[in-house]
């Protein structure tokens, strides 16, 4: 039931060197991958590029063929309203539900915005959100 709410995210490992992001971007272009949202997390000496894309399974397979280490992970998406306090509404929901967010990032399209976030047990968290009457986005909603 909750599985239809799982959003597939692609993660790619990148070396912390000039030109590495361009290399990944070129591969995404060659594989004809369209992104809806992405973020880059960096640590000492390396980074992780994470993206929500149109056809994640196909993109994952194409990138792997190019020798790029890519991983599919499930994340959760909640709609946000594009106005001051929009994030607070979402943060309160997540906080009240005592959900521990590993990381998160946003996507915005005119007045509509979405908050993508990663938790340890996504299906269980989705159940809790739905039970509390919170709107959770499906892949086709994005």
């Amino acid at each position, binding site marked *: 039931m909750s599985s239809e709410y799982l959003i597939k*995210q692609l*993660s790619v*490992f*990148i*070396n912390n060197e000039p030109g*590495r992001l361009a290399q990944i971007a070129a591969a995404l272009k060659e594989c004809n991958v369209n992104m809806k949202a992405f973020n880059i*997390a960096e*640590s000492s*000496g*390396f980074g*992780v590029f*994470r993206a929500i894309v149109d056809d994640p399974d196909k993109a994952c397979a194409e990138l*792997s063929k190019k*020798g*790029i*280490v890519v*991983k599919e*992970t499930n994340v959760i998406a909640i709609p946000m309203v594009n106005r001051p306090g929009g994030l607070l509404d979402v943060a309160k929901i997540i906080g009240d539900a005592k959900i521990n967010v*590993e*990381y998160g990032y946003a996507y915005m399209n005119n007045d509509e915005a979405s908050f993508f976030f*990663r938790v340890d047990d996504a299906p269980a968290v989705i159940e809790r959100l739905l039970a509390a009457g919170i709107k959770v986005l499906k892949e086709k909603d994005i």
Partner: protein
Amino acid sequence: MYWNETIEKMPISELKDLQYKSLKSLVNNLYSFSTFYHDRMKEMNVRPNDIQSLSDITKLPFMNKSDLRDNYPTKMFTSPKKSVVRYHVSSGTTGKPTLVGYTANDIEFWTESLARSLTSVGIGDGDVIQISYGYGLFTGGLGLHYGAERVGATVLPAGTGSTERQLELMIDLDVTAIACTPSYLMHMGDVAKAMGIDIRKDTQLRKAVLGAEPWSDNMRKYIENELGVQAYDIYGTSEISGPMFSECSEKDGIHVWGDTAIVEIIDPETGESLGPGEKGELVMTVLKKEAMPMIRYRIKDLTSVMEEECACGRTSPRIRRIDGRSDDMLIIRGINVFPSQVEHTLMHMPEMTGQYMIVVDRVGALDLMTVQVEVGQETFSDKIDDMLRLKKKISSELKKYLNIGIDVELMSPGSLPRFEGKAKRVIDRRKL
């Protein structure tokens, strides 16, 4: 000043005669009492009687570090175990250590050799010497300690680390000489500066006996100018006992006492002997060693030999400053590291893809070793925490086997160079 004038100034022809006699009796002994060496000689079809002159040494088989590893721990010992009074241990090529044992006489020969060396640089009675080499399994600390006590110096057994405290003691105890690695002395200089201590003015330090890692004449100039000390090169490896031989006050080559050892230089590729002045691989035969005799031991350090008498009047052959290695051993902060050890450690971690590179830098006075490893599909995680945990795991595994702190850098697959034929997995950027 000489410690043993008779030996140190012995005419070269007499010294060679002494060497021949010692070699002959050593070979006789080993042929009778060492299964290891007996078998080696038989394989090469050499008998003790084939040694009829000093140059016949070239008929004898070589020994290698792998022999020590293969015969670990004590299979090569030629003395009963109960007559062994001490062990020292150094790192081996594949994670297995190299063990060296000493009889009471071995310690005595070692101490005597260092007493001559320290005397030759003018360290003796009235000096206070700070031994800032590692004490313990490493040979440097205890070796120099015994040598320095023998010449009547006051020893401060400081060991390594706690640099600020070492500097305070140096001042409080009027230390006049120090024995340590050249990079540690440079590090001390930096720390002193940061503490507002001027080693030239605020201390009595005038002499430094430096070794256990490669260094250069440029480093010597830097140390002497910066710290106002005279810096001397000391040489040895655990297989030949430890630090054994040093330069004299002339700073023109390391005196290898002729009654104690025979030096040869060979072509590392062919094993052919090279003449004086020709650069090649150092091969040493230790004439005075009981628990673990070393004949024609291939140390793999590159140098050349000078046979003529030194300006100081000493007649033993001298070797020039070590100028690299004929194998891939690295010396990181005084510790021997073989790339094969890194490989061995990584191969035992199922997470690893097998692709790695070793990068060595010198930051300030300290060596910094970085191991770059490629991240595989199975180990990659979208969570930074997981990746940091992996990084930490690799570096603590490496630390466990190599005994030094190593930085780990995670790399994306395919980003490290691939090799056809012999892999060159080490980039040494240190400028000595």
